């Protein structure tokens, strides 16, 4: 009886979600963190303030994040870049997953009440990072596996 679950499907999902993070960088590229057309990081932060599901969160974005936009924009950009590269290459996967879990929860909390957003998207994203955190899928098709063999 086969009651074992293979790790490779989760490793494949890890790489796809790594691409998701890298792909999402295109609308928050420095130096202005704005895409050529459409909404940029500043627009999304303003939407989070206007449609805050949690008043305290909206207040934090309004009073702390927006006045220091460049600092936070760099922080978000670099963290998403690190998570994307970590998941895509399978390097330091559990750490990348932990950062990704934080980013996903932050997105979910911030965008929960923004019109047109589907909260399940962020719930799934957070859940996937939880799965990566628990299973460490960088050991298959990833650089974490190379370190282990050596």
């Amino acid at each position: 009886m086969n009651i074992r679950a293979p790790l490779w499907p989760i490793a494949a999902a890890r790489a796809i979600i790594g691409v998701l993070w890298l792909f999402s960088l295109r609308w928050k590229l420095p130096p202005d963190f704005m895409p050529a057309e459409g909404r940029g990081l500043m627009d999304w932060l303003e939407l989070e303030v206007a449609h805050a599901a949690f008043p305290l969160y909206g207040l934090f974005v309004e009073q702390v994040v927006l006045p220091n936009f460049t600092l936070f924009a760099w922080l978000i950009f670099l963290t998403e870049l690190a998570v994307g590269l970590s998941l895509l290459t399978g390097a330091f996967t559990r750490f990348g997953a932990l950062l990704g879990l934080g980013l996903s929860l932050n997105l979910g909390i911030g965008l929960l009440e923004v019109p047109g957003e589907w909260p399940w998207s962020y719930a799934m994203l957070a859940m996937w990072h939880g799965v990566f955190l628990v299973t460490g899928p960088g050991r298959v098709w990833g650089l974490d596996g190379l370190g282990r063999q050596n």
Partner: protein
Amino acid sequence: MGQMDSGNERNNEIREENENLKAQLIDMGQRESRMQQAGAILRITLGVILVVTWYKNLQDGIYTADGIVGLFNYLFNDNGGGPAFYQAIISATILQAPGLFAVFQLVGELLMGLGLLVGLFTPLAAVGAALFFFNLFLAYLGGNEWIWTYVLLTVSALVAGLAQSGRAWGLDSLLLRRLGEPPGGPIW
């Protein structure tokens, strides 16, 4: 005496090797069980999403001929999604008999959701869900919505199916225990 000592040493070495092997097997088993449980979490989440969305769609009248036509009108015109080939296929098939498709969708979505939720015939339910989500991916492609939602859904369904995730916290584990491996392919 010397021979007995060396025999004892060898026995100790073998015992130690066995202990190490046993520890490694337990470690591997724990990891595999963790992976299966991870697959089960994906499966249950997808099941909840499908059943909740099914109920909301039912209330909104989506599973009727008018509801189906309205949905595709929204997708192709207001939302601006769906590649030309996909629109052509939908127009030539589903939109020719929207009432029939509405019934198929009503039953199919509920069965997929329940199958994933309780982990019954999980690979079948998961493949069905993956095809359904991929269909949504095509329908929303190029539109205003965040297309990665449908990538996440499709990947989650595929992984839940490939991991045979109904064997952890699901009814497939009962089938496996009672009937053994399915004879006609991995349907549980």
